[in-house]
């Protein structure tokens, strides 16, 4: 077991390195840099090439590319992520508050998703091919089909027109004022959560169906309702694992995928930070963000893999 864990951990390193190189190169290939973004965008009649060169030198952008990469990587290894090229503040500071918001949103959305997906999936499986099944499938597919940003727009519209209420615009962290915080985050969490519940519902349904096909379950069903209930619980235990796997993976995706939702709901989260950082060509910040999300994603994957290997010993020896 220990060797398997070690192997999986080591496998993450080349992937992370690959991500680092990819984002580094991508950013430098994209036209424009932070100095241009800062000085050429106000429409002013004056542009001082001299000033722009001074700024570039200050930010280290005049160095050869390989040197910029090694400087950055050296910092990362010392857990020093550097300063944002746009604001000059330490990157950890820029990310902290936004990370809290996005993480909370992702967790809330995930919770809502699971609260919806698991019972609905089980119900759909038990009542397969009946109208209950159809309604649940339609409901969950509608969740996949509806763009979450559009759902968000509709939600805000409804709040505005029907309840005359505008969600609070300045973020209050959970530990400062929980009621205010929840008021702001519940709507995007619902919009995103509904969409992610769809994936879980289908997964739960097919996993349940698969287990219900097992001979021992079929015999029990033939024998009557009471046994069916007992064995349904048993079936559930086996079915739930792949579902939780998928939902954890989806959660890992969530963190990076909140960009549009944050735009619609005016949330100052990681998604917005991403868009701003790319728009400003803030190399250090974008790189740090991508590494953060990728690392997070890989670790979630890692834990799921470990959990699987622990349950099914055959996997360890592949």
């Amino acid at each position, binding site marked *: 077991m220990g060797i398997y864990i070690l192997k999986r951990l080591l496998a993450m390193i080349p992937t992370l390195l690959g991500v680092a190189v990819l984002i580094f190169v*991508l950013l430098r290939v994209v036209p424009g840099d932070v100095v241009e973004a800062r000085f050429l965008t106000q429409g002013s009649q004056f542009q001082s090439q001299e000033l722009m060169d001074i700024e570039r030198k200050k930010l280290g952008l005049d160095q050869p590319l390989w040197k910029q990469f090694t400087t950055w990587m050296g910092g990362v290894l010392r857990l020093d992520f550097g300063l944002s090229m746009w604001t000059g503040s330490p990157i950890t500071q820029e990310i902290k508050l936004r990370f809290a918001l996005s993480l909370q949103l992702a967790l809330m959305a995930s919770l809502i998703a699971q609260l919806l997906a698991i019972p609905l999936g089980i119900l759909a499986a038990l009542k397969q091919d009946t109208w209950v099944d159809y309604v649940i499938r339609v409901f969950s597919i509608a969740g996949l*089909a509806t*763009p979450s940003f*559009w759902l968000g727009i*509709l939600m805000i519209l409804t709040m505005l*027109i029907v309840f005359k209420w505008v969600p609070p615009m300045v973020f209050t962290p959970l530990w400062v004022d929980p009621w205010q915080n929840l008021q702001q985050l519940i709507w995007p969490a619902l919009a995103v959560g509904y969409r992610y519940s769809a994936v879980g519902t289908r997964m739960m349904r097919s996993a349940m169906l698969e287990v219900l096909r097992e001979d021992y379950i079929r015999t029990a069903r033939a024998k009557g309702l009471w046994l069916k209930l007992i064995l349904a619980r048993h079936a559930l235990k086996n079915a739930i694992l792949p579902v939780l796997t998928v939902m954890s993976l989806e959660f890992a995706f969530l963190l*990076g995928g909140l960009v549009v939702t944050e*735009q619609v709901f005016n949330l100052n989260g990681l998604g917005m930070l*991403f868009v701003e950082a790319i728009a400003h060509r803030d190399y250090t910040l974008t790189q740090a963000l991508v590494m953060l999300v990728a690392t997070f994603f890989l670790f979630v994957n890692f834990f799921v893999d470990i959990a699987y290997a622990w349950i099914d010993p055959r996997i360890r020896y592949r």
Partner: protein
Amino acid sequence: MPGSTPASATVELARAERPRWLAAVGDFVRRRPLGAIGAAIILVMVVLAATAGWIAPYDPLETDYAAMIAAPNAAHWLGTDAFGRDVLSRIIYGSRTALLVGLGAATLGATFGSLIGVASAYFGGRVDLIVQRIMDVFFAFPVIILALAVVAVLGTGAGNVILAIATPMVPRCARVVRSSALAVREMPYVDAARASGFRHGRIILRHMLPNVMAPILIMATAFLGEAILLEASLSFLGLGVQEPTAAWGLMLRGAAVEFAETAPWMAIFPGLAISLAVFGFNLFGDSLRDALDPRLRTQ
């Protein structure tokens, strides 16, 4: 078939497959009403896209500054937008953009993803390991960030959007196809083909790929829905198809949101169109998967 040569065994198997498919279509409509509804929605969309020129009451680019942001009325059934353009016509023409981008991205993504997945499974060993690591790198990138980056490098516009959307789909497709391909690799006819000395490319394309068609097809239909959604998101962010082209995500931008309180029709209808389209593809894809996945047959 005992006694036949491996090559003819493949041919016979392939021939035996064909009539079953045709009969299956009729079966499909009867036994999977949801899938049939999905297929119907897709059909409507395709028809709209093809006949837009005849069906749409107005030119989608035609502005009318005297009738800006008009509520739905007899002249404009779904109202007009901020430039006085007919919302209904723009939605009809928007199906073209959605299908173009969706099909283009899904095809591109599924094609490259499948080829990579199958090749990786076929060659195995070191090649497989390296390809997997590379796919992992792309996989770990959040989808929308990857799309954003591609757009930033290549620029906006329909063609680049197709590339931007296809890019995150390749590793996802590769991963799924690879696991199916791994099973196929152990099949006797593949071994036989290798023994016969066929070139790698031929084996991959003619022997392995056709046999992983089922998961590829399912992925492709799922991708189509995803692609339409992603295109809408990108256009909404201003990074996709550009004005004045009619595209559903684009219609949700700017004035649609700003004036949503007093003129909700600009935001409601395009969003409905997107949802219906993706809904159709997902219903169909779902039922397709149920039909093709032998383990879930109710018989």
